[in-house]
């Protein structure tokens, strides 16, 4: 079966091959492995970019293929980051506490260790008690399970409520945005149990691997991210091919018609929504150990909109478009906001890109929406000579997509 899938979708193979080539090239050039031409921080940036590509694929799946403009997928991304961050922080703090208590006159009791960890982690929010949501933080497998389950269940419940009451279109977008806002506001509180706006920090240090240099750790995460991206791409490609893919695209184009054909539209939408939430969470769980810190600002509604921007610029409705868009825009954004881009001197005013980058992004985004709805992916269509039918003349009927004058004549 998988053979036929690959033969029907040669694009997946091409993508995986390119990804593998890229990974190998960066590995050889990196500091931790070979030539040292690529700095560790840039390897981290690339690794993070791969995670962003993965969440962009999730976004493309739910928006480009299923037509649900979710403005909440970065919340799932952040939840995944929080879930893994809790274990990373707990375990690393535990090691520090055990080490510092080792010199005490009496060996520490288990309770003393837990109290010590609590004081270390929650000192900044004026508490020392472990909130109930940290109950599983001591166990890596349970927290890994939480990476999948917490966003999955949240997306499942939210999606079930929303789709069941037939909230669609822009209403759904606003509702998902409200969910994101509620979540980030909740996490901003100090008594949310996740350290308020301090967030979780020190995540780049893997517990027990203090001896391994960051250059090596960064490579591990880079490989992990590449692997996840490859798997995610293949999974998404499998979902959108075949009959399932046809139904999903049908829902995007005309939901009512698919429903009248007898398909349980809500179930399909819920499946896609939850699946993409889980993919986003996995991407987040790989992203934040490379970023080193996560705080509620990462979950703010604006982040999810940026995600939509990436997918739109890359070209939605095609998986490689999402990857290209996320990689292109996020790397460009790093370049511009990092102060590396040269200032443009207009004589009377010097454009400093740190200030003007967002203006440029906003304007180019409007232009892309207006003039190039296919995004960067449209360029590839041009190269491959794929064109939309050129429908000339005025529409004959009142509805969108009705026959036009010339089509009627032929």
């Amino acid at each position, binding site marked *: 079966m998988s053979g036929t899938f690959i033969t029907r979708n040669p694009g997946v193979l091409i993508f995986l091959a390119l990804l593998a080539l890229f990974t190998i090239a960066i590995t050889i050039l990196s500091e931790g492995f070979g030539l040292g031409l690529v700095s560790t921080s840039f390897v981290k940036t690339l690794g993070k970019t791969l995670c962003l590509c993965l969440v962009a694929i999730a976004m493309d799946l739910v928006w480009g293929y299923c037509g649900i*403009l979710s403005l909440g997928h970065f919340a799932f991304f952040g939840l995944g980051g929080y879930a893994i961050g809790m274990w990373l922080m707990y375990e690393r703090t535990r090691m520090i506490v055990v080490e510092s208590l080792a010199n005490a*006159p*009496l*060996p*520490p*009791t*288990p*309770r003393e260790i837990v109290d010590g960890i609590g004081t270390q982690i929650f000192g900044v929010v004026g508490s020392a008690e472990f909130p109930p949501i940290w109950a599983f933080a001591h166990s890596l497998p349970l927290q890994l399970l939480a990476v999948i389950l917490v966003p999955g269940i949240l997306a499942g419940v*939210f999606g079930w*409520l*929303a789709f*069941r*009451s*037939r*909230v669609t*279109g*822009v*209403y759904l*977008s*606003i*509702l998902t*945005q*409200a*969910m994101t*806002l*509620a*979540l980030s*506001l*909740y996490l*901003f*509180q100090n*008594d949310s149990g996740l350290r308020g706006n301090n967030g979780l920090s020190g995540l780049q240090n893997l517990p027990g691997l203090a001896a391994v240099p960051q250059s090596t750790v960064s490579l591990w995460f880079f490989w992990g991210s590449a692997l996840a991206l490859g798997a995610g791409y293949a999974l998404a490609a499998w979902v959108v091919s075949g009959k399932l893919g046809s139904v999903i695209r049908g829902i995007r184009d005309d939901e009512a018609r698919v429903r009248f054909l007898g398909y349980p539209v809500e179930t399909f939408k819920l499946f896609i929504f939850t699946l993409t939430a889980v993919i986003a969470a996995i991407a987040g769980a790989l992203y934040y150990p490379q970023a080193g810190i996560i705080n509620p600002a990462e979950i703010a*509604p*604006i982040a999810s*909109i940026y995600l*939509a*921007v990436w997918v*739109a610029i890359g070209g939605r409705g095609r998986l490689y478009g999402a990857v290209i868009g996320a990689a292109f825009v996020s790397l460009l954004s790093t370049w511009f906001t990092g102060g590396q881009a040269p200032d443009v001197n207009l004589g009377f005013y010097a454009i400093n890109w740190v*200030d*003007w*980058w*967002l*203006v440029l*992004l*906003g*304007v*180019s*985004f*409007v232009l892309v*929406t*207006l003039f190039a*709805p296919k995004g960067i992916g449209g360029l590839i269509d041009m190269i491959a000579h794929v064109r939309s039918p050129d429908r000339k003349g005025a529409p004959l009927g*009142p509805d*969108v997509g009705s026959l036009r004058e010339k089509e009627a004549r032929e």
Partner: protein
Amino acid sequence: MKFIALLIAVLFGSAPPAPAQTRDIQMLLQTHADAIVASSRRTIGPAIDALAASGLASAREVLNRWQDRELWVREADSLFVYVREEETGLVMLDIVSGVEIATVGRRDLRQLKPNGGIRALIGAALVQFQLSDPDIKVRRAGLRAIERRPEESHLAALRNSLEGETDPDLGIRKRRLERLLTISYGSSAERIAAIHSFDGALSVDVRAALNPILATRTVFGPPPEGANVARRLEPGSGDLGTADAHALMVAADVAAPIPGPEARKQALIDNIVDGAVAGVPVARLDTDAARDAAYLQLAASGVVPTYDPERSMADVVADEMFFAVYIEPDPAVTDAAQSTLKSIETGVKLNRTFDLALDGLSLASIYFLAAIGLAITFGVMGVINMAHGEFIMMGAYTGYLVQQVVPDYTLSLLIALPLAFAVAAAAGVAMERLVIRHLYHRPLETLLATFGISIALQQLAKTIFGTQARPLTSPGWLDGAWVLNDIVSISHIRIAIFAIALMFLAVFLFIMKRTRLGLEVRAVTQNPKMAASMGIDPDRINMLTFGLGSGIAGIAGVAIGLYAKVTSEMGADYIVQSFMTVVVGGVGNIWGTLIGATGIGFLQKGIEFLNPSNTLAAQTYMIVFIIVFIQFRPRGIIALRGRAAGD
């Protein structure tokens, strides 16, 4: 003449002939010279009283100076003088006229240094002068000083000044303050009468005066004879912590102190001998059970105080008697205070609710202001405009800029309001013409394109105006608050915002129902093609509608800017709430927006009231509530029916 007087004074070293009054106050001081020089709090009373009651014009000045340690006495003959320090010595000045009397050495004079107790007595005497001063401003200031820091000595002074008070308003305030002071310092019967006179009063100072009467202390065992018992306390309940109860028992020598975990741990550490405690190797003391066992071993050998691990503090204090005893010994007074406080509490609750309702109303009007423009663009035209918040911001910055040019705040506000409308409306029309027009059939892409405009505008504002908040100062007549009593008050700006919100509602209704434009807008909204065939230009109407909605957002920006600070992110703060307001209320209906804003405003204030420490949590719960609400009424509170509802 002065010179001669000085000469005589120097030559003879005695007091010069002085005016009659000087002699009087000097004589008065001389009469009490011993007491004044002795400076003892117990004996000074008559001296101060005599000065205060003398009716002499200079008595007040003398008391003042005395209090400030500026009164000196000549050792030789107890002549009281003021002093100016000079290099040659101390120049004595007459206490009435200020005339130089003589220059003497430091040894000849003695500075009077009244201690804190005496200074307080002098202060009380001075208060009486202030309260009876012919100048009403001085009397007001004196009263205010007492209100701020009432003392026992003030009561008599206040009572003395009641008679002569000519100003009726001040008289009422004085009498009220007199009753307040009586609560704390009067005789028993007076106090009870004074307490009852405040039944149902809402002021904070009444509660501040009553609460100390009900202060209690905790006693262990049966209460002492004649004690004013408040109630029995259950140890371990909210009133009395277990540890506190146990500490009381320990203090009464009834219970032995229980060494806490830290103390036990320290005892173990102190008794480590050759890497073992009581024969147990230190390495094995890594559980609580092992540590307890080792400690008991130590206790058995008498090294450390023993304790029973089976019997916790809670066991020790259970079934023991603890009482809360009023510090105030008179039960009649505490009863009176309790009943009055109870009556006050009911009033306070009612007023709190009313105050909360006012808060909710003002928050609702802010939401309504922020959302009304959106109700037009989103509700009527169905266009999602994510840059709506930035139009609000634009209006606020317009107001700020106008204030930079026109310094008069009232005038600048009058200019800013129409200008903000014009600026935001122009931006809205430009956006509609350039972008939205091309995306009417692609709502999701409208959302994204307007979002692109939103981030560009936001960044542009940040680049131009910087990241720090810019003030939009309200005119003087909008400062201050409308204060009903100590609990209920609402600032004038909020009232103004409420008024502006109502005005907008009226304007909107007028435009939509009574003008040609409104008619055409409604026609285009319901069926653009049919409207077009009737000779209405849908393009033009869409443009105008969008301009109207955006312009109103601009005016809302000025209003919101007055109440909050103007930043480049202020629009983004309101955008989600605004959409929520429109969606909850029901799209396409201004009354729905009104109901939505009211509901959300009141709901948020209500949640904040239940959890006052946390406005973030209130917003979270509110959004969750809205999400759930939309499950049940996806089309909002007022849902359009029929064809206008669309799909």
